[in-house]
Each structure stands twice: as structure tokens, then as C-alpha cells.
């Protein structure tokens, strides 16, 4: 028999008259019945198991003879009156949508800022914020260490009991704690900016520079007593908001001016997983009537 007679398109007809299939056999049912009786004997009477073993043996022997040396086959004749109807070619046309075409929903953002921009922006914003805070310390309390110590109150609860005089002094531990915390959080916020700024509608600088700091200040206001009681007692809210705005404007500026990079969002999953090299077109299908 040639390959042409055995393989073809689905539903295609063959020149053969018969097709080889496994022959019917009742030994599997005999074997199954024997196994069941073997177990049933445990529940009833040993003789049932004994009979079960005999039936099992007959089934096993018959099955063995079905498959060894060669598996039994039978030839089933092809009945011309039971042939499938030919597959009908459909005339309806189909539009294959391509990513990026008009009316094709794109996942946003299509372009993002690099994470490095976020780190740089965070550091810059943090520096601006720190400078303003120190300026406030110098003006209001005549010490640039005053705001530093207050910030350190987040991680050093003992500072909550310190006097204003003590807070004006330079202290190494709180300085290091405040420095690490400030830099760390600044970088984190900067990276968040880089990640979410492209998702905002227009006027990213407004969002990053004004609305986000205000939002952040509002969030801080009710919980500050819990996380930093020392700061809460002494805080000057106008200055706090101004410092936040400084961070937002500077950080947002640095993030926004970075070069944009394209995301993989609009590519098919296989390409994103690096299973395929990028192709020219990607598609989803949809019937159009």
C-alpha cells in the first residue's frame, strides 16, 4: 500500500477496500471479571476467589494468545454509502487583525521608561527633597540635623522621647538610618514613577510632580502618628508638602526626559517567551459578515 492511500487531507477518500483494525476479543472482559471475583472472594467466600483465579487465568491466557506472537487484526471493509460528505469550501471572508492596526485594541503602555531613569530620577528627587528639608531645619530650628533625626524616628522609636535640643545635635546612628531609608525609598518611588508614568493620560509632569505628592501627603497624614510619633508631634505640614512636591517635580522631570523603550506587550506570547523569532505579522482571527 502506498502512502497516498493511507494519508491525505481530513475526510479524503481512499482507493483501498479494507482497513486494518484491532480484532474484537472478549478476553479483556473475562480477565476483568476474574480480577473482580478474586477481590470479591475477600468479601464473601474463598471459593469465589478460587473461581475468580480460574477465570482470571482463562482471560490472561486468551489475551496472551491475542497479542503474541502478533496482535490480532481484522479487516473492516469501507462502505461507500457511509462516506463523509466532502468538506465544503466557505465563501465568507475573514479579516485577520494585526497588532497595531487601527481599531485593534493595544495593551498600554506601548512604550515605557527604562528602570535606570527611575533610579536616577529617584536619586535626584531625593536630593532635592533633602535639600529643602535641611533648609527648613536651618530656618526653623537652626540645625540641618533636626529633620534628619526626625526622619530616623521611623526606625528608632527611642527618638520619640528626645528633647528638641537633642534633636538639633548630629547623631551618627540616626543619620545613617535616615540616609539609608531616604535613599532607598527615593529609588523605589523613582522606579515606580518610571513604571507607571507611561500609563497615565497626558500631562505626566502634572501627575508626577503635583498630584502624586499631594496624594502621598494625604496618605501620610492619618497614619504618621503610628509610624513616626516623634515626627508627627513636631511636623510642619506646609513644609512637608513642599518637600514632597520638590521630589515629585524633580524626579518626574528626570524620569520623563529619559528615552522611551518599546514593551513586548503587543507581541505574541511565543515571541515574548523567546520561543520564536519576531515575525512580521501577528494575528487574531474573527469572522466578519
Amino acid at each position, binding site marked *: 500500500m502506498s502512502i497516498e492511500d493511507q494519508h*491525505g487531507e481530513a*475526510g479524503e477518500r481512499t482507493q483501498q477496500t479494507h482497513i486494518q483494525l484491532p480484532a474484537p476479543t472478549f478476553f479483556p472482559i473475562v480477565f476483568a471479571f476474574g480480577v473482580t471475583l478474586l477481590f470479591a472472594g475477600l468479601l464473601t467466600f474463598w471459593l469465589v476467589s478460587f473461581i475468580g483465579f480460574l477465570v482470571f487465568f482463562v482471560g490472561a491466557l486468551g489475551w496472551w494468545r491475542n497479542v503474541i506472537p502478533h496482535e490480532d487484526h481484522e479487516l473492516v471493509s469501507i462502505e461507500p454509502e457511509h462516506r463523509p460528505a466532502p468538506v465544503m469550501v466557505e465563501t465568507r471572508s475573514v479579516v485577520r487583525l494585526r497588532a497595531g492596526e487601527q481599531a485593534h485594541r493595544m495593551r498600554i503602555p506601548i512604550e515605557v521608561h527604562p528602570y535606570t531613569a527611575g533610579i536616577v530620577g529617584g536619586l535626584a528627587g531625593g536630593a532635592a527633597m533633602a535639600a529643602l528639608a535641611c533648609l527648613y531645619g536651618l530656618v526653623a530650628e537652626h540645625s540641618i540635623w533636626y529633620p534628619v533625626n526626625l526622619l530616623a524616628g521611623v526606625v528608632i522609636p527611642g527618638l520619640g522621647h528626645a528633647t528638641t535640643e537633642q534633636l538639633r545635635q548630629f547623631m551618627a546612628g540616626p543619620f545613617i538610618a535616615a540616609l539609608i531609608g531616604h535613599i532607598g525609598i527615593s529609588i523605589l518611588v523613582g522606579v515606580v514613577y518610571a513604571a507607571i508614568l507611561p500609563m497615565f493620560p497626558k500631562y505626566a509632569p502634572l501627575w508626577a510632580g503635583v498630584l502624586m505628592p499631594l496624594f502621598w501627603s494625604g496618605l501620610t497624614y492619618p497614619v504618621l502618628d503610628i509610624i513616626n510619633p516623634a515626627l508627627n508631634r513636631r511636623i510642619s505640614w506646609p513644609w512637608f508638602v513642599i518637600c514632597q512636591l520638590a521630589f515629585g517635580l524633580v524626579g518626574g522631570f528626570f524620569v520623563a526626559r529619559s528615552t522611551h523603550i518599546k514593551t513586548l506587550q503587543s507581541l505574541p506570547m511565543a515571541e515574548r517567551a523567546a520561543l520564536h523569532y519576531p515575525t512580521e505579522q501577528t494575528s487574531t482571527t474573527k469572522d466578519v459578515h
Partner: protein
Amino acid sequence: MASIDYPLERPKVGTKDWGFAEHMYDWVATVDHKKLGIMYIVSALLFLVIAGIMALVIRTQLALPNGHVVAPDTYNRLFTMHGTTMVFLLGMPLVAGFSNYLVPLMIGARDMAFPRLNAFGFWIFLFGGFLLYFSYLGGSGLYGAGSAPDVGWFAYAPLTEKPFSLGHSTDYWALGIIVSGIGTIASAINVIATTFSLRCPGMTLSRMPMFVWVMLIDSWLILVAFPPLTAAQIMLLLDRYLGANFFYTQRGGSAVLWQHLFWIFGHPEVYILIFPAFAILSEVIPIFSRKPIFGRPAMVGAVVAIGFISLGVWAHHMFAVGMTSYANSFFAASTMLVGIPTGIKIFNWTATMYGGKVNLKTPMLFCCGFLLQFLIAGLTGIMLAIAPFDWQLHDSYFVVGHFHFTLAEGLVFGIFAGLYYWFPKITGRMYNEKLGKWHFWLFVIGVNLTFIPMHFAGILGMPRRIYTYQAGRGWEFWQFSATIGAYIQAIAVAIYVWNVVHSAIKGEPAGDDPWDGWTLEWATTSPPPEYNFEKLPVVRSSRPLWDLKHPHDPDWKYE
């Protein structure tokens, strides 16, 4: 013994002179995957009716406070046999039946990889079911009055130990399930071997229909989940027959070990049960939305993820046992984790419908019903995954409501969708659409009327498995409406049975491809000939029939 022989030349199919004996021989000796698939599905539906009648008796007993419809002992047997039957004799044969009938057709093969093993698997499953039901006659040994197992479908130790469970009823439970489990394992190995080895040329794994993918992972889950149950049941039998001490708490054994072993099986099992519904939805929804499935790789990935994560969530059935808080946290977290791939599937089915030309035929209605009901089931599942929440509601009717939402409303909806969808392929005739819609709407009303009230009864403190209850606890209304719902479900299923029987005999001829399908089973006749395809097909994309129907715009240009 060698005298046992069988006719080598069978009478030709369809000739008039076929008597009863020829028909019997044709079905009993068959190794044809389609006949075995039909037998699996039909026997599963028979067991559905039996266990459904049990459920009706249970619901009647609970309809009113202080009910005495059945005796307390009988009640215990009823809920045990209802659960055992639904899981092992309805769910498992449906897995085997659907994969048997459809997998070879969908991958373009002539039969399963091991046709004789396939026949053996079906028969030993059926005999295992008979063995379990024989306990009604022989549960206390042949000489006593019959008693079916009464230890719950999960048969917690030490209740199952000899001093607490006399007679053989628990042995029937263990042995019946071990025997039918052999068939399940055989069929799972067969599906895997068929899928890997008998794919037609061009049917790569990435082009394989979603149905086959899901059944492949389902078979994998069967292979790793069933042995722990079999092992636990062997240990239980050793305890009961030979006096071993596995679960004997007085001699150092651990009753909690049984729970671990049972649920190591038991939780993957619920995924094993729900996977056929996932498989069916992944075929039916695209066809009735006229769009290819959304996010195919993610769908496959989600199934594979479930196939592994679900192996590590079992102890969320045991929060009330008193595990360490680390164990509780781990299993709570893993349980929520397994909700993620399930969520992916729900989203992708919905996205497949989005923007498609949705055709609300009965199969599609059942799919939509599945999506909503199963979503609720998943949400209550996440609630129960929170250990403190579970402590409050453990073993209450809330849990009963939850898992009936997953199985009775999830699995059964999916199964009905499949049964309607492939009915024309299996019988060659079309079902009655009007009756199908009646079935669907009555069933939706029935299941929700039954199982939503169970949640409320559970929150109000009603424990599960209780025989009856007193008036004045606020449970009466919920229990009564659950009973009403159960009877509505019964009417719906009766309509279905009538629809099937009537349409199979007198329905309109359906034609080969009534749904304008895309997978290979629609390329052959309805019902398919024994050899499935005259020529084994060659495929080039995941929608081979689409390619043939649209020669100028085939899928393979884009894949």
C-alpha cells in the same frame, strides 16, 4: 480452555440478520474506542441517575425539621454511597468516556494505543462499581442483612477500623474503589500513550486541540493521584484483615495519616473531575463564538500549572485537624495559588466570547452557565482557603454548598455542554433544541435553588452529614428550598433523558458537521465508521478543518 473460541469473521455491520446475540457480541467483545466511550458515558449516566435518586431521598429527609423519611443508618449509607458513586462511578467514567471517544478522533487516529487494555479498563471499572453496589446485598457477609458502606465518601479513620465498622461494608468500599481504580489507571495510561504516539502527521503538540491537551494533563493527574488512595486503601484493608496498625490510634497508628493520604489523592481528584469540563468548554466556546480560543498558550500553561500545583494543596481539607501554623499557612497560600491558573482559564474563555458571534445553542448555554456558577464556586473556594474562615465553617453546609457548586454546577454543566455538543456526532441525529433549552433553564434554577441555600444554612451553623435537625434554628427555609431545587433538577434531568432517547431514535439527521467545526472529528461521518478516517489526515494548524474550508486563508499561514 483452548476450546474457548470466537468467530473470526464477524457478520457485516448493519445487515438485517443481526440477532440479540450478535449485538451482545458486538458490544461485549468490542475494542473500538467509540463503543467503549459510549459505554463509559452511558454507565456513568446510569450511575448519575442512581446517585441522583439517593440525593433526592436525602433531600426529602432534610426537607422538614425532625424528618423521618429513612432510618438514621440508611441515611448514613445514602450519603456515603451518593458521594462515592458521584466521584468514582460518575466522574471517573466520564473522564475516561469523553477522552476515549474524542481523543483518537481529534488527533486523527484509528483507535486508542492499547485497544484491549481499553476494553479491560472499562469492564473492570464497571465490575468495580457492581462490587461496590453488591454491598447492599452482602455488606455484612453473605449471610447477614445487606449493608452498604456508611463511613462517608472519604472514610475517615479510625471510624473505618474493625471495632467501629463491623461486617464487610467498609471492605466493599475499599475493594470496589480499588478494582474500579485499576480501570481508571489503565485508561489514563492509554490516553497518554495515544496522545503521544498516535497523533496524525503534522499534529504537533502545539497544534493539538485544547481538549486533548486538557485530557492529557488529566491523565497525568490520575496517574500520580490515584496510587496514594490505592495505597491508603491497601493499608486500611491490611488493618482490617490482618490486624495491621496503620490507622489504629490505640497502637500508635495515626488517624491523621489517613486524612493526609486520602486528600493527597482527594484534592487532585477534584481537578481530575473538573478537567473534562475545562476540556469541553475549550472546544465548545470557540465554535459557538466563531473565534479561535483566546490565549491558547496561556490556556495550555494554566492547565499544566494546575496539573502540578494541585498536587500541593491537599491539607486545606484538614485545617481543623490541628496542624502547625506553618503548614496551615503553606496550604492556604498554595490553595490561593491554584486559583490563579483557574482564573486565567475563566478570563480566556470570556475573552474568546468577547467580540465573537455568539450563538446561544444549548451547548453554549451550558458553557455560559458553567462560567458563572464555577466562578462562584471558585470564590467560595478561596474563602475556604483562608484557614481561620475554614475553622469557622469546616464541616458545615457551607462546604457542602461550595463543593456542589464546583461539581454539580461546574462539572455537570460542562458535561452537559459536551453531551449536547457531540450528540450529533455520536448518534448521527440532532437533539431537540427546545427541550435542551428547557433542560438548561430548569437545571439552572434547580441547582441554584438547591446549593445557594446550603451556603446560608452553613453560615447559620448547620453541620453536614446530620440526620435531621430541630425547628427554630433558622435552617428550615434554606433546607426546604434546597429540597424544592433538588426536585426541579430531577425534572430537568428527566427532560434530558427523554431528549436523548427520543432524539437518538427519531431525531433529525444531523449531517457530518452540524456546528461548522474546526477539529478533525467533524471531518468524518456521524456516527464515525469503525476506522474513523479512510485516510489518516495530515494537519498543518490547530484548526485543520478551518484550513480545508478556507483554502485561500488557512491558519497555517499565521501559526
